[in-house]
């Protein structure tokens, strides 16, 4: 199949259903912990086990995090919201109902930003249908010998379900959108969004609107893709599904009217989607208001308080870094994508040092490398923004050259001492006196007559010879010379000598 030819013939219609695990210390409706990776059924309590006689009590922090998310994405927050029971039988669902929100979710509308793509696509927002809160279920472990076991560590963990309208038109946008969502939620402190740990899960609904030769538009059956546990898997699975649906349509001619919605699972290893089950009839969840919980009424003061807690979000921060500091889009993006702590750190260093570009370079090249190598959180990085901006200012004032600055920083990291102490101890500092340096330059040239011969003889490239001489001067000064000044003086002296 010729991809360029067919891509003209259809639109890809993608909608996402995203489940985000909220970053709370306890479960949605009990005081039970939520730590990931503990042995099965050790993170449970009577409420999350659904023991007879237990009752749910709403986790206020989870509700606040959910509200914050809705506000951050411009959604409409409901002033009155209630809880509902979604009834269905499943072994990993201890009560055989899930507490969720049905007809009065806490949030509707709003939009997730779609980042601009390199190929010029993307941009704009994908509209949100709704965001609601619910409790997670447990997990089935299918053991050997046909036995299945149930782990309820996750049961009752707070989940935010974010449902988008089918506004996405490109698998790359679906991925971009999810990446931006993750970044935003991390800025908000709402979730760690670790896809591998299941704290960010995404199902995608996809079909094609194909323009046929006779000028009609037909829609292929909708497929819901599950089990995608990385951003690249989302993109790959959608690409795979687009091709599969197009081929399937070419072969069978089946459209949305002919076939029910299908659930397909994505296998990363096989690189394909496989049918999980046909949705012949809609499940009857027998929703009704959860009588064990009281409705939540949200007032203006509550919303205002949370709105005030929302800091600058990634999109806004990128453009401010460009406009306020004159950073390139690339640099702004790198700093913002590192997370809020790095972006805050940059902000502090750039403001204090008055040197945004230098701050960006130092942070990207030195700070980030260091924390990556030592696997540090920025909060544990021993050089605070004041100390780093002090160092940058010294480099800028030519008290140190860049290489010295790097050495000083490395010792600041090792010792936790400020720059001035290390400079004093280590004898760093530039030879600022032009005459003194001119004397060193002159004596270096004198001591190396072969260099002049090389320059005169033309056997070697003059740049190489000059570079070597500059190196000798630096060596003579133990690196304390300002390299730019050395070049200037060297050129001047050589010119005097007729080179």
């Amino acid at each position, binding site marked *: 199949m010729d991809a360029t030819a067919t891509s003209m013939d259809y639109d890809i219609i993608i909608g996402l259903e995203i489940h985000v695990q909220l970053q709370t210390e306890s479960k949605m409706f009990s005081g039970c912990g939520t730590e990931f990776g503990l042995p099965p059924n050790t993170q449970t309590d*009577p409420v999350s*086990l*659904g*023991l*007879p*006689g*237990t*009752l*749910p*009590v*709403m986790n206020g922090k989870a509700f606040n995090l959910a509200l914050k998310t809705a506000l951050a994405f411009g959604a409409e927050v409901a002033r009155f919201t209630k809880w509902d*029971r979604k*009834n269905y*039988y499943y*072994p990993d669902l*201890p*009560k*055989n*109902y899930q507490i969720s929100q049905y007809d009065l979710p806490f949030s509707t509308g709003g939009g997730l930003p779609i980042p601009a793509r390199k190929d010029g696509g993307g941009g704009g927002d994908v509209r949100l249908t709704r965001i609601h809160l619910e409790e997670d279920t447990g997990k089935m472990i299918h053991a050997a010998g046909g036995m*299945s076991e*149930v782990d*309820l560590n996750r049961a009752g963990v707070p989940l935010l379900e974010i449902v988008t309208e089918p506004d996405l038109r490109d698998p790359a946008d679906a991925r971009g959108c999810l990446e931006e969502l993750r970044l935003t939620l991390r800025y908000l402190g709402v979730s760690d969004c670790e896809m591998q740990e299941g704290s960010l899960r995404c199902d995608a609904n996809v079909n094609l609107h194909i323009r046929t030769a006779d000028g009609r538009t037909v829609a292929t059956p909708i497929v819901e893709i599950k089990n995608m546990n990385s951003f690249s898997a989302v993109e790959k699975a959608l690409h795979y599904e687009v091709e599969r649906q197009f081929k399937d349509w070419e072969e069978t001619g089946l459209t949305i009217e002919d076939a029910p919605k299908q659930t397909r699972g994505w296998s990363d290893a096989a690189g394909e989607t496989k049918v999980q089950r046909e949705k012949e009839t*809609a499940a*009857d969840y*027998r*929703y*009704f208001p959860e*009588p*064990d*919980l*009281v409705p939540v009424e949200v007032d203006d003061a509550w919303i205002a308080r949370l709105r005030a807690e929302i800091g600058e979000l990634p999109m806004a921060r990128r453009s401010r870094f460009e406009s306020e500091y004159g950073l390139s889009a690339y640099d702004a993006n790198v700093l913002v994508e590192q997370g809020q702590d790095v972006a805050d750190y940059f902000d502090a260093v750039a403001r204090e040092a008055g040197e945004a570009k230098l701050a960006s370079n130092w942070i990207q090249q030195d700070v980030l490398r260091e924390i990556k190598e030592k696997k540090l959180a920025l909060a544990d990085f021993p050089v605070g923004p004041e100390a780093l901006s002090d160092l940058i200012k010294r480099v800028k004032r030519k008290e140190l050259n860049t290489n010295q600055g790097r050495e000083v920083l490395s010792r600041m990291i090792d010792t936790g001492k400020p720059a001035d102490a290390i400079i004093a101890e280590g004898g760093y500092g530039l030879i600022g006196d032009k005459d003194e340096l001119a004397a060193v330059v002159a004596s270096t040239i004198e001591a190396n007559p072969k260099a002049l011969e090389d320059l005169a003889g033309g056997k070697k490239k003059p740049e190489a010879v000059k570079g070597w001489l500059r190196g000798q001067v630096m060596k003579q000064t133990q690196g304390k010379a300002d390299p730019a000044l050395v070049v200037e003086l060297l050129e001047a002296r050589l010119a005097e000598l007729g080179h």
Partner: protein
Amino acid sequence: MDPLGATISGLLDGYSSGSFSSEEAVRGFVDRVVAYNARLNALLDFDPEPALEQARAIDARRRSGEPLGPLAGVPIAIKDNICRRGEPTTCCSRMLSNYRPPFDAAVIGKLREADAILLGRLNMDEFAMGSSNETSAYGPARNPWDTDRSPGGSSGGAASAVAASLAPTALGSDTGGSIRQPAALTGTVGLKPTYGRVSRYGLVAFASSLDQIGPFGREVADVARVLSVIAGQDPRDATSVDLPVPDYLTAIESKGERPLRVGIAREFFGEGLDPEIESAVREASRIFESEGATVSKISLPNTTQAIPAYYIVAPAEASSNLARYDGTIFGHRAEDFGPKSEVEKDLPALIRMMMASRAEGFGPEVTRRIMLGTFVLSAGYADQYYVRALKVRRLIRDDYDRAFRDVDVILGPTSPVPAFKVGEKISDPLAMYLLDVYTGPANLAGIPGISLPGGLTKSGLPIGIQLQAPAFAEETLLRAARTFERATDWNTKRPTLD
């Protein structure tokens, strides 16, 4: 003084005056249990040792002058749907025959703090579904006034135990009348507090929006004392309400600010009301008037819709609350779940296991209500049944709100009939459901209600009268009940068992 006939006040007086010790009192009750429980089937697998031990400890503390809680040494029997840590809590269902909760219900914690003595668990209708105690997996409890008759349900064991002085007081639960109706049938005092007044944490749910725990006693002061102990907000129950808990005992003996205004609804006197009960209610209204109250006619026009609405809302919630008993994590698990029909052959073993476990674990009444509840919540029917029932519920609340603008309490019958024979109604579920006609509306509206002895039939069976009050007006309710009690001696009547 005889501890066995005593009210809570009588017991506390006996303890403080040294007439008898807690241990002696408990031993007395234990002896009565041993003597009569085989006939009454009010208590289940009774082990007296822990209660006696607790009594000895309290006696020791009393002797050493330690401060004691307000129910120190008072034995209290507990309905089998209220969780006690490590003790069986089965809801009288085969489904939960092995369930021992790892925690105490909120009310149990409060009773322990008050130094009450937990005395056995009480027979009840399975999962509190029934009005005669006949749906219990342990067989029916019997009415001490006539052991051929039912003590009512679902707190039949509680009512029987208190009426027969196997325990001076008991905790039951009331979803549609399950405290008040058996209180009426056994000549005891039974209080259903306002929804939200007492924590439901640890009460095994039947219908969450209707269930409320409440006390049984010999006199109004008994239920007032117990309510003072068990009431109050609980952070583990989101529906419990943050209001101060008054001292109800003081409240009932104090005079109201103005003469009591009693209302009687014309809808109470329809078809199905036993004439002897009707005349007892009319007599009660005369007594209130003679005690200085004004009595006026009121109307609760939607009362007739209460039973249909109740029998939609309660089963709907029950079908969901009882869904967890599927043999997977807990609840009875069937041993044989092979396919029993052609249809079952295609089902996964797991589904068959759940089906067989539920079929074996639940009795017919519970099964009927689960089916009913599942149906009324189903897509396509929910609007027709469940949603309409919620609208009726709202109308019933509005009726009460309107009525309570003019009156402080509403007087009426508790049960349309006195105690009926065991087996008489069990095969006719609709007739059984009609027994809740006077009690169900209070649960739908969330308001408090009390049943107290109001007479005896010619054949010598107790008649209960009911008082209802606005939400959280238990002080008014209990004060009105005490006014009636003071003017009559019905609460002193006892069945003879020997």
